């Protein structure tokens, strides 16, 4: 029972961070219909930013989110304006290759600057835990990052539902042409959406830094996870991505215990294919285009 509870709790908590990566991807896809293969690399940039802020200025990774969020927002906006925008109407494989190319540029530039060493960001609380009882414990930094994720997701939900810009983004996601006809500045919405996506990925990077490690090629695994989460939740659905992230976290953690840690990623991919086949709109998605 302790094993079950422990796996469930840590699965949910790590799922929170996955969710944040997935939400970023789903926003970008929803608004632009671009599958962003550089998403994990954008997250990696966020991790190095956190690392720099921590080592050079001593800013706590959780506090540094306040700085890295806007910086990553501008970085994402820049990427959209200079690169992605030019292929919005191009065929899908060119969009994919472009983002793959951008990802290669990011990870290898970072490698030239920081070398490919593993960087460990050790805070005073990196290994601290809270005992819940029954032999089950919760990692303090993971719990904090989960709470921050929840807050950011709530804020994002409010932004998309209640503000004019948010509603314009949602309208663009629903039907780009109709939105344009309605007088919405579609290209501006795209920049904002990509900026938000990048900022969320960067934030996820910052949040995972105290309990993980950093190196230039770290992005790859997270890109794939983000894809799975996004499809699972329904492309373009923020709530779906949140649930998808947590579901993936729990699935990984449970299958590591009850099947085998070697096969846990296979379980995730099989789940992914099943959703694609039987409910292609995802858990929360309404319709497919």
């Amino acid at each position, binding site marked *: 029972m302790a094993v079950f509870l422990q796996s469930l709790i840590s699965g949910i908590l790590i799922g929170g961070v996955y969710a944040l990566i997935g939400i970023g991807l789903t926003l970008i896809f929803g608004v632009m219909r671009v599958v962003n293969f550089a998403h994990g690399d954008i997250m990696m940039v966020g991790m190095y930013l956190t690392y720099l802020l921590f080592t050079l200025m001593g800013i706590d990774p959780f506090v540094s989110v306040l700085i890295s969020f806007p910086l990553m927002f501008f970085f994402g906006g820049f990427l959209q304006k200079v690169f992605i925008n030019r292929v919005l109407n191009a065929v899908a494989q060119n969009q994919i290759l472009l983002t793959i190319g951008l990802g290669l540029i990011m990870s290898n530039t970072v490698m030239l600057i920081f070398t490919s060493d*593993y960087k460990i960001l050790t805070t005073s609380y990196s290994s601290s835990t809270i005992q819940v009882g029954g032999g089950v414990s919760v990692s303090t930094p993971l719990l904090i990052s989960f709470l921050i994720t929840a807050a950011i997701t709530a804020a994002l939900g409010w932004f998309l539902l209640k503000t004019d810009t948010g509603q314009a983004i949602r309208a663009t996601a629903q039907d780009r042409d109709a939105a344009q006809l309605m007088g919405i500045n579609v290209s501006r919405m795209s920049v904002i959406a990509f900026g938000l996506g990048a900022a969320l990925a960067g934030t996820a990077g910052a949040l995972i830094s105290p309990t993980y490690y950093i190196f230039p090629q770290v992005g790859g695994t997270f890109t794939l996870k983000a894809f799975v989460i996004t499809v699972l939740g329904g492309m373009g659905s923020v709530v779906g991505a949140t649930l998808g992230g947590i579901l993936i976290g729990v699935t*990984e953690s449970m299958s590591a215990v009850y099947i085998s840690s*070697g096969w846990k990623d296979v379980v995730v991919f099989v789940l992914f294919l099943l959703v694609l086949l039987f409910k292609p709109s995802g858990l929360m998605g309404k319709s497919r285009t």
Partner: protein
Amino acid sequence: MRKHLLALGAALALSPCLMAQKIGVINSMSGPEAPIGENITNGIKLADEDLKKKGINLQLVWEDDTGKPQISMSAMEKLATRDNVVGVVGPYTSACSNAVAKLAEKYRVPLLIPAAAKEEITRQGLKYVFRMNAPADKYASSLIDAAASLGKPKSIAFIYENTDFGTSTTKTAKEYVAKKGIQIVADEPYPKGAADYRSTLAKVKSKNPDLVFMVSYVADAILLMRQSKEVGLQPQAFLGAGAGFTTTEFAKERAISESVISCTQWTNDVNWPGAKDFGTRYKAKFGKEPTYHAACAYASMMIMAETAKNAGGDRTKTRNALKAGKWNGVMGEVQFADYDGFTNQNNHQMLVQQILSGNYETVLPAQFATKKAVYPFPKWK
């Protein structure tokens, strides 16, 4: 483009031969293996400097294999047939070394592999292939012997990365514990780079093993230990195989790394000639502690360069001299011997070390020990 390259190639081939010894280096300088490859690069750079001081001028031909066997073959083809090097030091990974070893034999180019762990590489009877480091089976046997001499462990759990290094080390370890009568209670391969091992560790904890044997090449080691503490995994000893457990970053995490036992090819406190000095100078030059890869690469290059020079740049003579020679340097005594089915394998003494007060202290074998081992593993605070 191709024409241009051909012209370029011709121009290069015609260039006058320099008097310096030409030695090839194949290493993973970019790609996923680059973090470890960098240590090898640095070790060789330091060797190059030291050789200059000794009056041996080297012309190193650097080749990046990006961690891919077919690319490392390209590199070997180029070094052997276009650059005409006397010998080659490298590659880093087992997969690349495997692919390159056969080519070295074919072209009769002496190849000195500094740090690849797969046993089979030197078990194919290849005459031109030499290896500096101890292969994977030594990791397992030295660690388990250490635990068995310190206490009376009855059960063991394996947690290891599902890579070539992880699985082959664990495979020999399983055979070894079977002989020793230790029961295997958990066998958990994990994908390298995962963020959450808590569920796996909780499962291992429920089996209550006396020993936890982990193989991790990279920073996963820190995550595994952090999360072991979180879930309260409390064996008699944590045994760590692989580079992840032997980095200064790992030792610096005192809250989780204290008293972990690991094994390594090299430490900077061992009394092999020049080892301490190498550690100090390496740190001064590159701003970080050398790993054993760096020491292996350094020693390999020193031996290769000196042998090549004495052999007058002749490949066969160099090969024979490597086979006949005996050295004593930062890696201790080095001799490329044939034993237990190995050919040209340096029967290297692995060192067992434990982190005590945040420092790696050699605890076994007795003649190299600097401190007495702490056993069993103290209760988590």
